[in-house]
């Protein structure tokens, strides 16, 4: 399957819309900025003052973080769904988020105090390792003789998520008050800690994931017919699996490390794209990344503004909005052969 001209146009429109949304949501917040303020800031006319600091040091990195985390979740959701050939295979459902949460908790409670200091890189590295270990565990448990059994995969994901949740709970129980606060922050999901250095870490993980996953459209298209058929078409499905798992773990691990657990974006973004323009993975992958970014950017703007200056936990908000919407989509698609 190639990209139709129309697909390319939509991707371009999506890109432009993303920029527009970034700028638009920059005007909202506890401290509103007008369009004129924004122009002055961007064009360099405003070089000092509260709004200068607020925009460049707090709001802009946060908006970019929101977009990047959303893109990471949407992209890995699309990749993992294509890999497992299952529309339910979201990173959180197959235990990837649980694994990286546990690894992050281990780092915060056990490793950090042991080393006596926390490094900026420690958390993402641990979260990534947790993500990939959970992913491998689920994959091993659900694969026999090179064939992945979907039901086993989902069950294994549930088991791993539960197990990681239990261990995370245990660690919470033994942690002190400061650590406990950090945990709560994680388990609810928030972008309040965004900064340029965090954004850099995220991008260092996200860009390779993008570079690995985006060219895999044709391979994942072949996988739409199942693993055996993909092999008959000449694809090395084992290699495809490893690449997708690695890239998705990288993206999800980094985003969990920096923003905690944010649900439903990875499930919803690819699902919406698929309902809208079908299953061509060459379009689905970039489009899911863009849509994920836009969705999370919107959600984060709501989280910042609804109770300003208080903040709603972002992960709670995405789940509150995402779960009913997903429920609706499932009911809609049930009679139309679009879900199995």
């Amino acid at each position: 399957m190639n990209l139709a001209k129309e697909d390319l146009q939509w991707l371009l429109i999506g890109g432009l819309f993303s920029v527009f949304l970034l700028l638009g949501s920059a005007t909202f917040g506890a401290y509103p900025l007008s369009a004129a303020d924004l122009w002055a800031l961007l064009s360099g006319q405003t070089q000092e003052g509260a709004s200068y600091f607020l925009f460049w040091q707090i709001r802009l990195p946060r908006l970019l973080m929101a977009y990047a985390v959303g893109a990471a979740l949407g992209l890995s959701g699309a990749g993992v769904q294509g890999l497992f050939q299952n529309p339910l295979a979201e990173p959180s459902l197959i235990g990837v988020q649980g694994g990286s949460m546990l690894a992050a908790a281990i780092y915060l409670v056990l490793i950090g105090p042991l080393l006596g200091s926390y490094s900026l890189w420690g958390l993402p590295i641990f979260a990534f390792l947790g993500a990939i270990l959970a992913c491998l565990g689920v994959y091993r448990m659900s694969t026999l003789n090179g064939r992945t059994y979907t039901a086993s995969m989902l069950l294994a994901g549930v088991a791993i998520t539960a197990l990681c949740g239990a261990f995370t709970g245990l660690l919470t129980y033994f942690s002190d008050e400061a650590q406990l606060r950090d945990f709560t922050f994680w388990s609810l999901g928030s972008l309040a800690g965004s900064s340029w250095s965090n954004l850099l870490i995220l991008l260092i993980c996200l860009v390779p994931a993008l570079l690995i996953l985006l060219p895999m459209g044709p391979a994942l298209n072949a996988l739409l017919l199942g693993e055996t058929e993909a092999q008959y078409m000449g694809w090395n499905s084992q290699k495809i699996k490893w690449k997708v798992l690695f890239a998705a773990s990288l993206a999800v691990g980094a985003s969990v490390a920096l923003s905690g657990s944010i649900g439903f974006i990875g499930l919803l973004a690819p699902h919406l794209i698929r309902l809208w323009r079908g299953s061509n993975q060459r379009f689905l992958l970039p489009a899911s990344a863009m849509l994920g970014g836009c969705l999370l950017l919107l959600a984060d703007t709501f989280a910042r503004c609804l109770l300003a200056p208080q903040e709603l936990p972002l992960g709670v908000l995405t789940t509150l909005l995402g779960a009913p919407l997903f429920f609706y989509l499932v009911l809609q698609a049930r009679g139309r052969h679009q879900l199995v």
Partner: protein
Amino acid sequence: MFWGLLPAAGATFRGSLLARPCASKLAGSGLRPPLHIARPAAPLGPVGRKINEVIMLLDVDAALFWGQKPLLEELRFSLSAGEFLVVLGPNGVGKSSLLQWLAGQKTPALKVKGKAQLKGKDLAQYSLSEMAQFRAVMSQRLHLPFPLKVQEFMSLGHAQQKTALSDERALDLLAQLGLKGYEDRLWQQLSGGERQRLQLARLLWQLQEAIEQKEALLLLDEPLAALDIAHQQQLMQLVAQLCKEQQLGALAILHDINIAAQYADRLLLLAPGQQWALGPPEEVLTQEALKAMYQVETFIEKHPIHHCPQVIFSGWLKGQTI
């Protein structure tokens, strides 16, 4: 170009569904390799040879084991371009394992002694993507979890295929397989017969370069399992026609002996543990063979119209129970 030759196949859908005369009585049998014997005793000559300039696509001389247990011994057969070979045998005899092995699938429990050659080169030396350029596999049935349009399904091709699927050619091929106007329908909305024809259309697209070079190999794994009697006839007729007109080599696993006898050039009969016979249907389909294969008593009649042998079940072997 083979595109122009296919309409005849499309025409048969609308025309009579009566079979062609028994395959072995057809003209052009001068191309048939003289490989029919009641029971193979000696190797069948040098592998990879050409008979009357017919390209030898497949040459097998091997024994299959499931773990340590022998599955099929003394398996010797070959398949040339333009030939339709059907493999028959009881459940569990190793037909599917055989096909998966020939298709390049790695099954950990399946051990092979001996070898198979594809186009004169050892099977093990091919990579998956090399093989996909001249060999396509039709599955019994596909399960697609995501919505996929007919034209998207068509265009998947093989891993190395760089040529973009032009709309015109895709439409042409779909029309020839009786799927005109189906481009925007979803796979999920097609009937079993339409799905099998669409699979075939996609496989022909995957093989198009090989078909032009007359060295395409099609493996079919119980392609009739989901089809009614009319669609079974359609599909078999289509494959037989592709073999004759496009010089496609086809190897199919079937359970229906009568439809196999009607269309196959040769039958490969497998009894538990061994290859029983290889040859044209009217020579190898005997009461003795069916006893050995299925433990059943049968009558063998000639079909009143196309004269191919037809098998009628008459009872169990003495002492044999279900």
